[in-house]
């Protein structure tokens, strides 16, 4: 299928305003009479709060008020949560602090400077409790509890088995096993999360925030604030990056709203970087796996056995949705049918987990690929060969995987072949050998694949839980298309979605395709929650596919209306007409027709020229529901279809490791992605390079670290190391397009794959470079010190 606008490299509609520094970010917003809040954060990981003394702070000129968790407990309800009902939290700690960085008190003042002065003057008396930092120790029966009401530090535990792993392993020729450790990193956008709340007209509280999904969860914030949901309006503000960290970032708008309601004036609360690092509510996964995979001698995978302990930190706002994501692609692109998955989600004195690009599925993919690589090495197979032998074949789709999810479509051999065609592996392998022998250099080649699940269904928020409290099934997206009286197009999006993806360009491109108008001519706006139709917002690589469905739905309604107006004016039947290049014309006689502008004039100003019963105007909305989802079985034997729009990627990394410093440097990097039909290849390419660079950060540099006493070690960007331009490789990007049979235009999501596969490819490359020393990457991030120690131990063993 070829399109006029879809699939072409296109400049982004969003860019001109960003290039002149007018992005309209939350920190740029100023309201008359606006006050500023700063937060006192806990310096201790686990303690009862005995008292908070605000006397001195309140004496400081410019300080307006101080609020604590006690005020929250009295005046508002706990925060929204998809976790156990016995693990509750408020925007500020009530009675007890549970991690370093948890909010203890808020100072509201005339300026941020004065608010921070006020924070300095607060005195808190803590009664310290033993910190719980090791998730294994946290599970011991005599361990001190974080949440007394919950009665255990295990937030959630369950074992899932699909097929029969023991039987499968009994027939295996080789079983590999490993202990694999994935460290904490986070989306860490350059802009932090923030909100400005103002008591507005008619008792409505307005909250401007750069958190996303606002129309989906507005009623939950209203419930926290104890106000009717029709008295709360969330106003969308563009985000300076998210990568998951602003997904339903509910505490920041709830806190700003609470403060504004208390003082009766607009209040701005913007996290600073330290707030964000220690308390973003969106630390990434922190897991330890005992994992086993069985193989037959020819490399065929027979089964997977996983026992994972996930260190969730102090609260569980999204339940264990991270593992639902893993289940969406639990077998990767491979054909094996037997899977066992034991999950223990543990609470400890650390910041809680949230979302980070991959949202749990990236960790699962790394584990899967680590095991496949180990199998390949032990069986003497090349990494591309063992994968090829196990791929689900193009004629097997749609393919139902163990657990119940469905893969809509794919061509994994084609993606692998495309990647292999872009790099000469044979000559790299020869060069690697030559450089080792002649120059003593250590080159490594890593190849990995990933599934990239996209377009989630809301069932995955709860299907892992035995008795879900709120088993919702909707995850729609909406669009409103207006043609104004002069024939110009307005597109209204019903969720905040400016995360660094390009919703305006995507939306305008799809609308242009529908009507044959230039994409640049479309004006795009965002609805606030008071006007918003159902929308779930971006997340889980769903937005492009979903909004395209909504825009197409609205367009079809408008096209029908245009055809009927034209038919009436031309005294023909609508079936005799067609819409071509912004003009309704007679089939077979294209010289007779009416432009959209002419029809729009009629629609707005000449009611007597409209067909009988038609009303004036040209505006249509459409709400597009998830294109393919099925309910989970009540007994958990089948999780249903919940993430069926399945992309795929293959990365090949070539790097050199300096064995004496542990420094890796990239020599080549090929990334091939299949995201179905591509709307804007250059944008998708940017997601691949950006995502893969984040994956490299997770693999080599980034760590949100706590010491054993629970003190947070990553307080600045000097400690939390984001890759700079000097660390990021030069990527060579290829695309394969296998359209989805379920979505409009065949679009699949493409936002997360880069980060989901890079850790596996880079880990494999490091192993390959240093295999002679027994190097096996088993813990991320793999720091230079680990590499050097492994090399030295290997050399010592050689004698």
């Amino acid at each position: 299928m070829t399109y006029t606008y879809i699939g072409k490299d296109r400049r982004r509609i969003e860019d001109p305003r960003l290039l002149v520094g007018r992005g309209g970010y939350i920190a740029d917003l100023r309201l008359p009479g606006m006050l500023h809040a700063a937060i006192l954060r806990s310096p201790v990981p686990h303690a009862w709060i005995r008292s908070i003394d605000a006397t001195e702070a309140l004496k400081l000129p410019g300080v307006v008020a101080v609020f604590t968790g006690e005020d929250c407990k009295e005046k508002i309800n706990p925060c929204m949560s998809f976790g156990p009902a016995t693990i509750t939290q408020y925007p500020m700690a009530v009675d007890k602090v549970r991690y370093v960085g948890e909010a203890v008190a808020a100072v509201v003042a005339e300026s941020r400077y004065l608010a921070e002065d006020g924070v300095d003057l607060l005195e808190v008396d803590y009664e310290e409790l033993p910190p719980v930092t090791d998730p294994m120790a946290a599970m011991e029966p005599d361990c001190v509890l974080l949440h007394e009401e919950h009665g255990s530090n295990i937030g959630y535990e369950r074992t899932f088995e699909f097929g029969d792993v023991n039987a499968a392993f009994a027939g295996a020729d080789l079983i590999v096993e490993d202990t694999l450790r994935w460290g904490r990193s986070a989306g860490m956008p350059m802009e932090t999360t923030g909100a400005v709340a103002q008591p507005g007209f008619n008792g409505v509280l307005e909250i401007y925030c750069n958190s996303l999904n606002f129309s989906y969860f507005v009623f939950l914030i209203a419930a926290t604030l104890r106000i009717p949901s029709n008295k709360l309006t969330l106003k969308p503000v563009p985000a300076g990056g998210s990568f998951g960290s602003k997904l339903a970032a509910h505490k920041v708008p709830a806190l700003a709203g609470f403060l504004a309601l208390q003082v009766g004036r607009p209040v701005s609360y913007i996290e600073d970087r330290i707030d964000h690092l220690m308390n973003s509510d969106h630390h990434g996964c922190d897991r330890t796996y005992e994992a086993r995979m069985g193989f037959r001698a020819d490399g065929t995978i027979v089964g997977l056995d996983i026992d994972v302990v996930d260190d969730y930190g102090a609260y569980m706002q999204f339940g264990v949705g991270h593992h639902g994501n893993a289940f969406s692609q639990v077998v990767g692109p491979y054909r094996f049918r037997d899977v066992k998955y034991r999950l223990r989600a543990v609470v400890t004195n650390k910041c809680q987990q949230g979302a980070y690009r991959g949202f749990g599925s990236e960790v699962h993919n790394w584990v899967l690929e680590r095991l496949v690589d180990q199998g390949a090495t032990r069986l003497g197979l090349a990494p591309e060969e063992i994968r090829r032998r196990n791929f689900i074949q193009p004629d097997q789709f749609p393919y139902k995987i163990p657990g119940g999810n469905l893969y809509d479509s794919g061509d994994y051999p084609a993606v692998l072949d495309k990647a292999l065609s872009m790099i000469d592996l044979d000559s790299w392998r020869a060069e690697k050998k030559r450089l080792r022998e002649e120059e003593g250099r250590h080159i490594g080649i890593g190849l990995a694949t990933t599934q990239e699940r996209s377009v989630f269904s809301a069932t995955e928020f709860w299907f892992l839980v035995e008795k879900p409290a709120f088993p919702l099934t909707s995850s729609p997206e909406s669009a409103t298309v207006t043609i104004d009286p002069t024939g110009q197009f307005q597109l209204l999006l019903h969720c905040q979605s400016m995360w660094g993806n390009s919703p305006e360009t995507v939306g305008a491109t799809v609308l242009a395709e529908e009507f044959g108008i230039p994409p640049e001519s479309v004006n795009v706006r965002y609805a606030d929650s008071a006007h918003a139709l159902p929308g779930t917002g971006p997340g889980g690589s769903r937005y492009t596919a979903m909004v395209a469905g909504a825009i197409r739905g609205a367009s079809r309604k408008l096209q029908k209306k245009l055809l009927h107006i034209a038919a009436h004016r031309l005294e023909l039947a609508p079936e005799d007409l067609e819409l071509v290049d912004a003009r309704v014309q007679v089939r077979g006689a294209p010289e007779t027709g009416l432009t959209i502008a002419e029809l729009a004039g009629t629609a707005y100003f000449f009611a007597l020229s409209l067909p009988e019963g038609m009303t004036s105007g040209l505006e249509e909305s459409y709400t597009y529901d998830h294109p393919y989802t099925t309910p989970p079985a009540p007994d958990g034997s089948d999780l249903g279809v919940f993430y069926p729009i399945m992309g795929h990627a293959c990365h090949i990394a070539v790097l050199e490791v300096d064995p004496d410093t542990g420094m890796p440097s990239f020599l080549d990097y090929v990334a091939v992605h299949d995201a179905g039909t591509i709307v804007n290849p250059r944008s998708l390419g940017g997601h691949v390079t950006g995502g893969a660079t984040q994956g490299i950060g997770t693999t080599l540099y980034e760590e949100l670290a706590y010491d054993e006493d629970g003190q947070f070690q990553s307080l600045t960007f000097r400690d939390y190391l984001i890759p700079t331009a000097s660390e990021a490789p030069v990527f060579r990007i290829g695309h394969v397009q296998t359209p989805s049979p379920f979505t409009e235009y065949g679009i699949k999501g493409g936002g997360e794959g880069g980060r989901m596969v890079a850790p596996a490819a880079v880990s494999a490359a490091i192993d390959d470079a240093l295999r002679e020393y027994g190097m096996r990457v088993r813990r991320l991030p793999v720091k230079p010190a680990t590499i050097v120690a492994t090399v030295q131990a290997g050399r010592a063993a050689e004698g």
Partner: protein
Amino acid sequence: MTTSTAAKYGTARRAVTVRVNGRHVTREVSTRTTLADFLRDELDLVSVHVGCEHGECGCCTVLFDGLSVRSCLMLAVQADGHAVETVESLSANPAELHPIQEAFAEEQGLQCGFCTPAMLLRTKEIIDAGREMTDAEVRHEISGILCRCTGYQNIVNAVQSAGAKLRGPTAGGRD
């Protein structure tokens, strides 16, 4: 807390005159106001983005007498008598972009736009230095500014394409 409060949090004020984007402005500021906050709050130049306030992300980069500085690490009073340029000095009009901004649009050297003003100003500084650079050199030169979105590749391409355009056609330079 004792009487030291006033000393510690004292708000001594001082007049500063700064040439900002070619125009002299005089304001009375608190001595502890950072240059970044002065530009953002006093002059409404919200293109100066504050990403860390501890000198590591580079998003607050402005040109100070033509050289890039992190405006979160300077005080407004230090700018007295100096010249500061923000991205508005290239173009503040989305419909009439400067060639450097144009190159970033064409190469898609941005996603969320938060690092972008800093990257544009640093690009200007690099190009003004007049020397052609390899891609690796460009990467080194921009490595003081973090971008979380792009993976830098399109930014490097944009810097090179803007440089080629502004310096005129010459041979080589890319690696």
